[in-house]
């Protein structure tokens, strides 16, 4: 079974702090994604990566950056956390971007910015 793990289930940070969210997948998937999930808005893509050191902006990249130094690991960075970044963050991976591109999700990190 594909396993996607996220470093924290719950995180509380203060405004202005730098926040790192880590994601690791164990199935040698090329693609990795970061989403945020908010009530009524669904899943919104922040960034994705289709290879090591490659990244593409999603729909809402402002205020975020990413890093993919190893194939299995994809990090989301909030350079200076703000209260409007309080959300559920979901990482996902997929084998390749064709067909259904089935995405395998981690359990999520609920981030609260005070």
């Amino acid at each position, binding site marked *: 079974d594909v396993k*996607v793990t996220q470093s924290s289930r719950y995180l509380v940070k203060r405004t202005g702090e730098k926040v790192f969210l880590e994601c690791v997948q164990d199935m040698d998937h090329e*693609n990795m*994604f970061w989403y945020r999930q908010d*009530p*009524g*808005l*669904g*899943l919104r*893509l922040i960034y*994705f990566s*289709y290879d090591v050191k490659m990244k*593409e902006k999603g729909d809402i990249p402002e205020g975020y950056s990413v890093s993919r130094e190893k194939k299995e690991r994809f990090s989301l960075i909030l350079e200076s956390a703000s209260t409007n970044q309080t959300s559920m963050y*979901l990482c*996902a991976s997929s084998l390749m*971007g*064709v*067909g*259904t*591109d*089935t*995405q*395998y*999700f*981690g*359990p*999520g990190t609920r981030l609260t910015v005070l």
Partner: protein
Amino acid sequence: QKEVEQDPGPLSVPEGAIVSLNCTYSNSAFQYFMWYRQYSRKGPELLMYTYSSGNKEDGRFTAQVDKSSKYISLFIRDSQPSDSATYLCASRPNTGGFKTIFGAGTRLFVKA
């Protein structure tokens, strides 16, 4: 207008009821249509998918796509309390690329 629209609910039904979950989409290039299920405090998991128009059945679940009206449906027969979850529809085109578009998700409660 969002590319995939979905009523967030919540939808509450008694055990044994037939459930109908629906989405509409706007992009004619979409060819793959997926339903993901998300239990509380978990990430979404792919439940089933269809390619282009038509029906697909898997046990108590039937996915249906009508491309002429750009309408996506998921039917759950004999619903169980264990079906209580958020159901997200998703679509993507039949070309390379990485953009899967998710609906907002419909929260379903099945009462025993």
